[in-house]
């Protein structure tokens, strides 16, 4: 059970699930202009919770994320920037599992990977939860 709650807003669902030392975050739906204001706060809370709980990997399942606009994407960039700003010992890993059929995911999340190559990875989603 994660202390982080599920976010359901205007067609976007973010469902966190703590699995041992890993936090699995499942994105689904569409992150559009309507949720721009809530995402930054959510990822700040997620970062704090990960720090608090000693989680060493956040796996973000993107396969059901249909669309995310650039303003919403900014929240992810800020999250990675937050991670980069942590002392090395406190940094955790983030693994994005993208849908290879969605080109925009490949393009966008590859850019995220380049922000922190050592800690952010992008892999193809191959069905089911790990």
């Amino acid at each position, binding site marked *: 059970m994660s202390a982080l709650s599920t976010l359901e807003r205007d067609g976007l669902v973010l469902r966190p699930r703590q699995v041992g030392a890993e936090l699995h975050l499942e994105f689904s739906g569409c992150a559009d202009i309507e949720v721009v204001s809530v995402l930054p706060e959510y990822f700040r809370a997620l970062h704090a919770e990960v720090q608090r709980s000693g989680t060493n990997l956040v796996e973000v399942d993107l396969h059901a994320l249909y669309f995310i606009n650039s303003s919403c994407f900014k929240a992810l960039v800020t999250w990675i920037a937050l991670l980069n700003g942590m002392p090395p010992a406190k940094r955790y890993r983030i693994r994005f599992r993208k849908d290879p059929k969605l080109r*925009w995911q490949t393009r966008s999340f590859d850019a995220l990977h380049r922000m922190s190559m050592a800690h952010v990875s992008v892999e193809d989603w191959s069905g089911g939860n790990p």
Partner: protein
Amino acid sequence: MIRRTRRVGLLVDWLEDEYQNKVLAGVDAEAQANGVSLFCLTGGVLLSPYRFGARRNFLYDLAGLACVDGLVLMSGTLSNYVGPSKLARYCERYRPMPMCSIGVALTGIPSVLVDNASGMRQAISHLVEVHGYRRIAFIRGPGVNEEAEERYRVYREVLAEHGLPFNPDLVTLGNFQVASGADAIRSMLDERRVGFDAIVAASDSMALGACEALVARGYRIPQDIAVVGFDDIREGRFAPAPLTTVRQPLDRQGKQALELVLAQLEGEVITDHVVLQTELVRRRSCGCSPHELPDRVLPEICGDDLTLSGVFNEHHARILADVTQAIWASSPDVDVSKGVELVEAFRAELETGTDAHFLDVLELAVNEAAETGGNIDAWQAVITTLRSYALPALVNDKPKMSKAEDMWHEARVIIGGAAERAQAKKRLQAETWSRTLRKSGEALFTSLDVAAVMNTVQEQLPKLNIRSAYLSTFEGGIERARLMLAYDVNGRGVERHRGESFAANQLVPSDVLVDDVRQTFIVEPLFFESEQLGFVLFEMGPSDGVVYETLRDQIGSALKAALLVKQLVEETARRETAERDRLQKEMEIAERIQTSILPKNVDVFGIDIASVMMPASEVGGDYYDILPSEGLCWFGIGDVAGHGLRTGLVMLMIQSVIAALVTQNSWTTPKEILRVLNSVIYDNVRSRLGQDEHATLCLMRITQDGHMLYAGAHEDMLLYRARSNQVEVVPTPGTWIAAVRNIDAGTVDNELRLEPNDLLLLYTDGVTEAMNEQQQPFGLDALRRELEGVASRSVEEIKDHLLATVRHYVTRQQDDITLLVLRYRGTAN
């Protein structure tokens, strides 16, 4: 103003105390008898110095010919802080309306007064002469209250007449309220540390407060300290030691005052004051025994041949007088002729042996006392009186004695039972009111908008037996009001007047009240702390004024809360509008920044160029630029995440830095420009501005020979190959600008060779992510298909077609749309 039903106003401080309620009852009874409507305006004590004390006074400003034809002034409750002369001057505003003052003689205004002196003299003389008290303390009323001062003057006179020393430490000032009675005890016992064996208060409320304080300190009343009050309020009769007091005829004052106003309305000129008598009512608190016979010595009744009829004939007048006195002591409202009837029934039943309904007569009389709130238990004194006269005549007549004892016994049981029922009924009624008011309070305090408050008030009214009510709030000042609630249990369609604006001194809009129906309204001010909110008229239902005062309190607080919420909502809306306007202006500025620096009429050798940028209303940040140089040309396309002025400024910075770097060294590589650019923008955005913007950006350098070097992360490019008539998707791998401090590792220069007539389409996400009604994005595949279909056309036509297609697809443009179409014509051209 001619009205079919006359209207009279009653100005009174409030209705929480019995004094005011009893006078109101008298005025109301007289108003009913004369078919006159009564408006009781509870505007507080004039200029009360207590915190927000005078906040109710605005109600008196509404009293005038616009709403009433004459005024009864309960001056004793109004003038405690201003005195009679200032009150008289204050009332000049009401002329030429007929007026009558109660309790205080006002110059030029007919007044109904009570003989304070005789009653107080009886009371203090009784304490000295009958009970032998020597150290008698006194609680005065307010210093400017004439009646209170009169009572105090008599106190000092009687002490002097009996040779008792006057000790100022035994005198305290009060304000007629219960609390000031308790304060007096605390002051004398705890601060001055003076002892006394009796205490007299200028009002019953203060006397009862003193009783409570004394009992709390362990004193017994009257064994340790005797207490006497003034007024004869109902509460005093039911005190643990029923209060000995000076009775002033409160309801008669009210009746008389209304009579005088009505007489003036009929044209009579009244100049005299009416003075009503007061009288000592002895109960337990002064030290008298319960059911004690009147303060007179019984005549000697003795002899061997005494008969009941003989005694009753001989002492008939005395018996009736004593019985009447006992009845009057129980309740001034009971018809004393019941006493005569009772005496005759008793005599007839014993003498003739027939059933003369003695017990029935008694029961009726007791029930009547119960109805008027009298002290039923005091009827025991009536039986004691009868028994005292009859006993000597019955000692030798055992059968009659036995029957008489049975009758007296049953009578005492009837009286005891009735007293108990009356108390239970009173308690039950009080509990019912209390429960209803508590519920109404709960409902009102959870109503958070004005309409909900009005609905809640309306729902509560029938439960409180209030048949009609009209609530209005002020508009700006107190001159105009708006009717917010109009309720009448009879319907009458009064609710149609809701929302009407009217002169506040009318109390209700014209035509709301039925002119030929007499009604009594309690008019309560609505306020919160020092803020005057409006007023409410309750048609009088319950006789206990506390109901209206409590409702007023609840409505005032709920209304204030609702108005605050409304204000908050309006303020939020105002701020939102201001914020929207600000954003709108910001957007306009951002748009101007965005569009004003776009390249115009750029002529690049060997490359046809068509471009367009359509800023969205809410989201901005698209960037493109064309920077031709000798033998080559730089192209850039990107998108700053976010919207508004900040985004526009970041975009402006990006454009400036790139232009400067390219100008300085046009043959440098895209990666190198991005590296320096990122370093500058990252520092500006994150460190200097403290913001978190980032931008997608792809930079391309195309040389005359078709060699293209590009770097940076942005949308995939679409490359139409003329030779194969195919569109290729060209990814733009890399890192965004201003997301991380160093982008070296993630940024690489990529190469591409353009053939003549190849077409390069650059765009921003506003194109591929344009949504249709079903929230489906336009998408890269569609863009690709469209490009394939028109690739042979001119770059302008291609640009126009793609733009038209996207605009046709989208329901509402949410993001900037940028298209840049380049056709490489080859070196030959």
